[in-house]
Every structure is written in C-alpha cells, then in structure tokens.
C-alpha cells in the first residue's frame, strides 16, 4: 500500500491532529515502512478464521440498573482547563 502525503493528511484529520510539514514527511516514511512490514500478515491464510477481539470468552457483563449518587460536581470540574458556573467552558459551536 502506497502512503502519500494525502493519505497522511486525511488520517490526521480523522485523528484530530494538526501536523507540521516536517511531521507529515516523517510520517509518510514511517507509516510506509510500518505498513509494508505489517503486510507480512497476508502470508497467512485466514479465510476461515474467526477474528478474536477479546481472549476471555466473556460477554454482556451488566450491572443492575440502579441509580446511585454520582461524583460531586467540584471533583469533576477540578481538572477542567476552563469552567464557569458549574459547567465546562467551550468555544461556541452553534452559530
């Protein structure tokens, strides 16, 4: 798979990253190297193999839907980069 500058710019946008021109150039070459290395997996025939996303066969781990007190507001806001009136402060989203 050929990795181009456009590929990097598209992926960076998906990943919500701003890259400098220098970073883009380094990433084109790093990703090219890594992706051609991982292409090695195509040597294996996996046509009838089920993918494993979790090694332990657990599913549907639920708890009782009981309402309990949550965290106190000040604790939650304590790490906020910007807050006001008990809310997280963010840039205007809706015009």
């Amino acid at each position, binding site marked *: 798979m050929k990795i181009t500058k456009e*590929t*990097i710019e*598209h*992926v*960076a946008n*998906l*990943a*919500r*990253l*701003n*890259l400098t021109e220098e*970073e883009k150039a380094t*990433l084109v070459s*790093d*990703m090219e*190297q*890594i*992706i051609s*290395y*991982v*292409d*090695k*997996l*195509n*040597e*294996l025939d*996996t046509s009838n*193999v*089920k*993918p*494993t*996303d*979790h*090694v*332990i066969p*657990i599913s549907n*781990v639920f*708890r009782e839907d009981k309402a309990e007190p949550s*965290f106190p507001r000040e*604790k*939650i806001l*304590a*790490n*906020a*980069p*910007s807050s006001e009136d008990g809310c*997280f402060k*963010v*840039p205007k*989203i809706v015009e």
Partner: protein
Amino acid sequence: MELYELTVHQLSDLIKEKKVSAVEITKSYLDRIEKIDSKVGSYLSVLGEDAVKRATEVQEKIDKGEAKSPLSGIPVALKDNICTEGIKTTCASKMLHNFIPPYNATVSKKLLDDDAVIIGKLNMDEFAMGGSTENSYFKSARNPWDLERVPGGSSGGSAAAVAANLTAFALGSDTGGSIRQPASFCGVVGMKPTYGAVSRFGLVAFASSLDQIGPLTKDVTDCAIVLNCITGHDPMDSTSANVEYPDYTKALVNDVKGLKIGIPKEYMGEGLNPEVRKAVLDAVEVLKKLGAQCEEFSLPLTEYAIPAYYLISSAEASSNLARYDGIKYGYRAEKFTDLLDLYKQSRSEGFGTEVKRRIMLGTYALSSGYYDAYYKKALQVRTLIKQGFDEAFEKYDVILGPTAPTTAYKLGEKVNNPLEMYLGDIYTVSVNIAGLPGLVVPCGFDGNGLPIGLQLIGKAFDESTLLRVGFTFEQNTDYNKKARI
C-alpha cells in the same frame, strides 16, 4: 544491611516482630530517593511528607493489631498511568501533566486497603508507548546497572526503582512486554498476569484487550505476595475474570520434578544476542538437573506476532486516546480558531511523537476501506496465535525463552528508529495477544555486567506454576542481585 535493601517479606517479618516501624522503612526509602534518584530518573512524583504521615497512621493500626496484611507498612510506588486519588497521574505526557484523578484505580485501593504506603509515581514511556522510557515527556529514566543505558520500557521507572532499591516493590503495566522487558533489562522479577486477572479500572487505557497491571519485585516471593493483593474479580472492570484466585504464596515450592517445559525454537534463532542465548540455555540446564523435562518445539507463528500486535494495539490506542480533546481534563491549547481546531491543536501540542505515530497507524488501520485488510486481519491472526499456544500447552506446562533479544542498549540508540524498537518486542507480544501470564526472573549477566531475564509463559490463570518454576530457579542460582548505586 540497610532497610531499603530488604525485600517485602523481610520487611514484613521485621514489622511483625516489632523490630522496625513503617515510618523508619518509609524514611529509609525517601532518603535514598533524595540521594540518588536524580541520577536514575525513576520517579515523576515523590510523596515525601504525605507518605510519612500515612506510614504513621499505618503504624498506629499495626500497633492496635488492625493491620495484618503482608503489605502493611510496606512502601510501594506505582507507574504513573495508574490512577491514585488526589495524587498527580501524568502518564508521562504533557497531555496529562496536571491531571489529578478524583478516584483510585482498583489496584490502588487494594494496596491502600492492605495498608501499603504509596511513596510515589514512576516514570514511563508516554501513555505506555515505547520500550525504553525515552518517550517520557519529563525525562528519560536510566538503567541503575549502567546509567548511560535504558532501563527498558514502558515501565522503565518501575523496574529501575526496584533494581536500585528506591522502593520495596512497584506496579507496572504490560501491553506488549512493558513489565517483562524492563524487568529483564534491570535484573528484577516482573510479571504480567493473565488477561483479566488484575482489574484495569483506573489504569489509563492504551490497548484495552492487551493491557494488564502487574508487579515488579526484588524476588519471586514478593511477586506472589503482591499478586495476592492485586488479583481478583472487579465489578468495575467488565473484562475482569470472575474465577477463583488461589493463594499464590502456596506456589513457592522448590521443586520442578516432572514439569514439562517447552522452548520455542523460533525464540532461540536469528536475532538473539549470543550472550542472552547462552544464559537462557544455561537456565534450561539448571532446570533439567532439578528434574524438569525440557525440549525444543516449534511455534511457527512467532514472526507474525509483531505486525499483529502493532495493528491491534495501535488501533485500540487510537480509539482510547480519542478522549483527550482538551475539554474536560488534560491539556488545552491556548490558541485555536474553532472547536475542531481546539481538538487538533490540543492533541498535537499535548501528545509526543511516538504517541502521534501510533494514533496515526491505528486510525489508518481502522479507517473505511482499510479495516478488513489491517485490523480484522490482525484479529484473525490473533486467533491463530492463540491456537498455537493452546496446542503447545497440551504438551507442556510452561514455555520458556528469552525476554528480549538483547540486554539494555544505550540511550539514544533506537529512539529514532521506530521499527527497530518494535522488533525488540518479539518474545513478549504474543503473550499479550494470547492473554497468557508471563514471569521474568534474572538468569545472568552479559560481558558488560548487564542483566539478562528468563521469560516463563504459562497457561491462562496458571500463575502458580510460573511462580513455582521461578522460585525453584531463584533458590538454586545466584542471579538475584541489586545494582550497586
């Protein structure tokens, strides 16, 4: 002998015999940290007075007969990706440089319930991505055996602190080898438990299907003691295994007679440093003399473990690190044009190079058009790798091999070659892919006096057999030494 040179079990005995107090032990470690950690760089935060205060409270409990755990009054340090309530937890990243968790990780709570004394948070590769602790935003950690060399990573601070007697024991995390490889580089005992055995609640997530917290200790006995504390089902972690957990100290038996040990020939071939190979083969001879049956066998999918690992872990990381958006916690950029730019600037300024590289790789592997070719393919290979181990464990009780292809290398040597760094994980990643337990014990030193670690891989939830082999090996050899620093 100084208090800081003793193991957890030795200190615990002294406390029970009322020969020493929790405060004396804590101060012994804090003094040593002040004297030498500027050279080692293992700590990111040291609790100082707060630790002494806590040790005083624990001692009062001990005096009243209310604190009887083998960890009561024992100083512990935690890798800085494990949440500790009220104590800065940075993941060695600018993104979380000022983050103070409002809650304790389950393992932190378990240690506190057992009256251990948390003395600090340990250095690591940023967000646990790396194999040398050179990717830390704050400073590199150094190998106490040779300060010009890396301690390994990503739990480099944890391994270095134990090796240099800067803590009685430590917790690290292991996603692709991050406890075991630094344990090998620093000559300490390190264990990655079976996936699901230790709760991940409060462990800052890197790759959710691979991450596990585990102990780094001065000997195998200490490892068993710590495992007793940290393992267990946790309703706060939906991937936590609801099984019976034994008393691991019962596994500390000096006997391997009749045990069947398999050595993958793919682990012993090309790329393995000859001194490391010799140390591992010598270890096999020791175990054979003690009655274990050791033989070589083939684990043919070994070479596919690294590409599978990097695809799976990067994909999961890109997903887990999407939460760092500068809104509710963590770093927020000062200059941005709109919301989208706030996200992009905060993330670009907050994350280091290796983290960005892996996020990019993971995002690519999961993106439309590439998901099947990369991520899904890697998950299918994962099934095959796990099957390979299941078949091997029908014949063998334990699989044995080296932990890393080399001993500790010099700082700066690999940091600009990501692929070369990744290839160093060859013996450790498949263990995470298959979710199995892995124990590393020191088994020798190379010509430069650098430690070599022996890796033992076990069946799922069979940490006891690993501890038995590790304990037997330790009792019959003399490689358990600490760095002279």
